[in-house]
């Protein structure tokens, strides 16, 4: 069970066969990449020995891009073209992006906002992809080979749009996404495996821009999320901002206005985008200083040579940020209620995220749970380490120790719009994924032949108060009297927490379906064209790359098929076995050639031809799982 255990000789695959996989924590402030080497999860450092990569992207004046520390050095001097905390804009529209002042010039675009840079209008997905690409290269250089794939972490409270955007960014960075997993769940895996923990745990995860609370039950290697909650726009950045606003008010730099001190100062031109960035950096420094010291000095020289300088005490900082902290506690109490648990039942509260270093946070969590929080893990690294362990497992490097399993939930309810702008909830929050739910709707006009389906996410009763995920139409319904058509709408949420929706008129069989994406994210075409241009830039041949990918996929399937036939071949009567052998043969032949289309065709044929076999094998493994359990129960 132990994460830190070195594998037994012979247990782990031969190093040459070991599939290289990584876990990536794509954070608001910092990002990390980790992997499992010799049975131990470890963060991969850069060449200078630094673990963290600041999540900062700078578009250079002369062309080219800096990512990380180098980009951070430009943050104040070249604020508009240095994108900080891009995670806050993932899957978000203009209204959300401009809710707080930033140095950026935002451009409205369908679904997701764009940021105007000297390198053109950039989607937050593209900016994030720059960060991920650096981490991918770092990992490949350290591990000495191509990655099979990556597990990317997302805040548990991320909605469908934010998750899809993250997955798109990974694809754009040339990563094969093995799974998106929730940050607190990843942390629980790292903590739980490391400490052989059993029982109920709360993971309180306050990052740079997001807050999550997850309540988990750990039972014999099963990590079951019971409830999750949070705020995907609340993090350390907001605490920093409070210091900046206070400093501007106190020193009288900001003119009196209706809005916040910061908004007023920026609108009046007293504070430039560069000043804003410099003050945010200084506020963060003060915040960090206050973790160990009772007082810090906030000191920034503005571009008009005004110096803003004043002492900030820990008490003052606590007072300035009390309501932010209270918001996290409210979400925590709500998650506890959703889980139908009392705080006394929680065995331990695990703190994750750099912002949990703030003393007031530790104190508040200790008070709420009535016990000191668990802080023996590095709050910056634990998420990436958990993701690495999961990636290792999903890539197929399973050892005998790895009999653990994650059962996670969706954070927000999913529903569709009904008459009068009301939401009909199909899947409630905290449903364990994967999950599917269907409901029937009907037409309200005689002869109605089309029906608009509007998919929303959120807890409120009115559509207007929820987040719109997608709209699509079911057309070709045969004309019938009002109320006669039976339209069955099915929601399916997969193991990544991503939704797809289909609708079917029951009497005619007319169908429509949608992966809930094009209305806010990037279309597949957009991603394909971005990928194409990035390959062109890297001098890669698209065709060769496609061939290589199909060959890798063919090898993977052939290997999995051989293993399946060896283990469960007895489930197949001879004619079925012969049919499968023929499909395997066909794929092996296509694989040896260089016709991408032929390989793809053979892959599809084999995968379709083995559905029934897969179902029978799964039956057998369920039977074995249940028998194994009853044997355990009688102590055999």
């Amino acid at each position: 069970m132990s994460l830190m255990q070195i594998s037994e000789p012979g247990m782990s695959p031969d190093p040459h066969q070991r599939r290289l996989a990584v876990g990536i924590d794509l954070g608001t402030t910092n990002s990390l990449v980790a992997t499992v080497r010799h049975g131990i999860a470890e963060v991969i450092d850069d060449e200078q020995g630094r673990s963290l990569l600041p999540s900062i992207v700078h578009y250079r004046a002369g062309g080219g891009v800096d990512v990380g520390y180098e980009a951070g050095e430009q943050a104040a001097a070249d604020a508009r073209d240095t994108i900080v905390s891009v995670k806050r804009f993932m899957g978000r529209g203009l209204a959300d992006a401009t809710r707080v002042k930033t140095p950026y010039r935002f451009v409205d675009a369908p679904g997701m906002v764009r940021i105007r840079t000297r390198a053109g209008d950039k989607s937050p997905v593209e900016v994030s992809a720059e960060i991920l690409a650096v981490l991918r290269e770092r990992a490949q250089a350290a591990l000495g080979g191509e990655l099979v794939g990556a597990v990317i972490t997302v805040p548990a409270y991320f909605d469908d749009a934010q998750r899809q955007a993250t997955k798109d960014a990974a694809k754009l960075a040339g990563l094969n996404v093995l799974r998106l997993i929730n940050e607190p769940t990843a942390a629980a895996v790292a903590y739980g495996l490391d400490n052989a923990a059993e029982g109920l745990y709360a993971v309180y995860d306050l990052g740079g821009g997001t807050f999550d609370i997850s309540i988990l039950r750990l039972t014999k290697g099963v990590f079951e999320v019971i409830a999750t909650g949070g705020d995907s726009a609340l993090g350390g950045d907001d605490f920093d901002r409070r210091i900046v606003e206070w400093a501007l008010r106190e020193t009288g730099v900001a003119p009196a206005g209706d809005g916040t001190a910061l908004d007023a100062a920026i609108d009046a031109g007293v504070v430039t985008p560069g000043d804003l960035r410099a003050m945010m950096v200084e506020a963060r420094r003060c915040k960090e200083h206050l973790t160990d010291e009772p007082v810090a000095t906030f000191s920034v020289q503005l571009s008009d040579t005004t110096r803003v300088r004043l002492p900030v005490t820990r008490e003052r900082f606590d007072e300035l940020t009390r309501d932010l902290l209270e918001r996290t506690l409210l979400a925590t109490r709500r998650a506890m209620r959703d889980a139908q648990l009392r705080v006394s039942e929680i065995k331990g509260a695990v703190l994750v995220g750099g912002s949990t270093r703030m003393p007031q946070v530790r104190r508040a969590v200790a008070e709420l749970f009535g016990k000191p929080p668990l802080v023996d893990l590095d709050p910056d690294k634990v998420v990436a380490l958990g993701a690495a362990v999961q990636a290792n497992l999903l890539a197929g490097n399973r050892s005998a120790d790895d009999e653990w399993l994650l059962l996670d939930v969706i954070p927000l309810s999913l529903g569709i719009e009904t008459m009068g702008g009301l939401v009909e909830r199909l899947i409630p929050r905290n449903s364990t994924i994967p999950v599917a739910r269907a409901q029937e709707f009907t037409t309200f006009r005689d002869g109605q032949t089309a029906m608009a389906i509007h998919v929303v996410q959120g807890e409120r009763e009115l559509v207007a108060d929820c987040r719109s995920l997608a709209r699509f139409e079911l057309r070709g319904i045969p004309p019938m009297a009002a109320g006669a058509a039976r339209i069955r709408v099915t929601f399916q949420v997969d193991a990544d927490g991503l939704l797809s929706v289909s609708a079917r008129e029951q009497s005619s069989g007319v169908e429509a379906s949608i992966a809930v994406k094009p209305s806010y994210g990037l279309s597949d075409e957009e991603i394909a064209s971005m990928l194409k241009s990035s390959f062109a830039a890297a001098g890669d041949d698209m065709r060769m790359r496609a061939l290589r990918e199909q060959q890798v996929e063919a090898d993977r399937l052939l290997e999995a098929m051989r293993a399946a036939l060896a283990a469960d071949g007895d489930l197949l009567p001879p004619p079925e076995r012969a049919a499968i052998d023929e499909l395997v043969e066909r794929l092996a032949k296509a694989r040896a050639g260089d016709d991408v289309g032929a390989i793809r065709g053979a892959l599809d044929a084999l995968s379709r031809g083995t559905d029934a076999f897969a179902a029978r094998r799964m039956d057998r493994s369920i039977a074995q799982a249940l028998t194994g359990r009853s044997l355990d129960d009688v102590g055999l």
Partner: protein
Amino acid sequence: MSVLSRNHFELFGLPVRFEIDTAALDAAYRGVQGAVHPDRHAGGTAADRRVAMQLATHANEAYRTLRDPARRGAYLCALAGVDVEFESNTAMPAQFLMQQIEWREALDDARAARSAAGLQALREGLEEARDALLARLARAIDADGDYVEAAGDLRQMMFLDRFSAEIDDAEERLLEA
């Protein structure tokens, strides 16, 4: 017999009854997910992954149904060919309706007074009524096999669960304030 054609009790290797051993259900659920979850088949064929997603979805639904007494009861009625008519049948015994009216008034009072203690007292009364209903359901289904009687009790249970959700909401308001 394929997984999807088994009933939920058979899926988890449990007897088809209203009163169940929830610890055994929890353990069986974890066992089944351990066998079918997509994470366990990430390296499998495309068919494996498709089937894994389908069966893991099914196992989650089956577990949710059996874990909750009202859903479990309705499922047992459905297996016996009796529709509980949650939406269409609103006939209730007079005494039950009287009780509902009293509770609603008490809830309004507790809300107006912002009384956490009032809400707590209501919840306790509700839990008591719920326990009595559960005992009646167990008798109707497991001892008497009277699913029509059980359906009536389940409709009452649904009222209680809705009322419980309203108490939750009221508590939430208090928390937020």
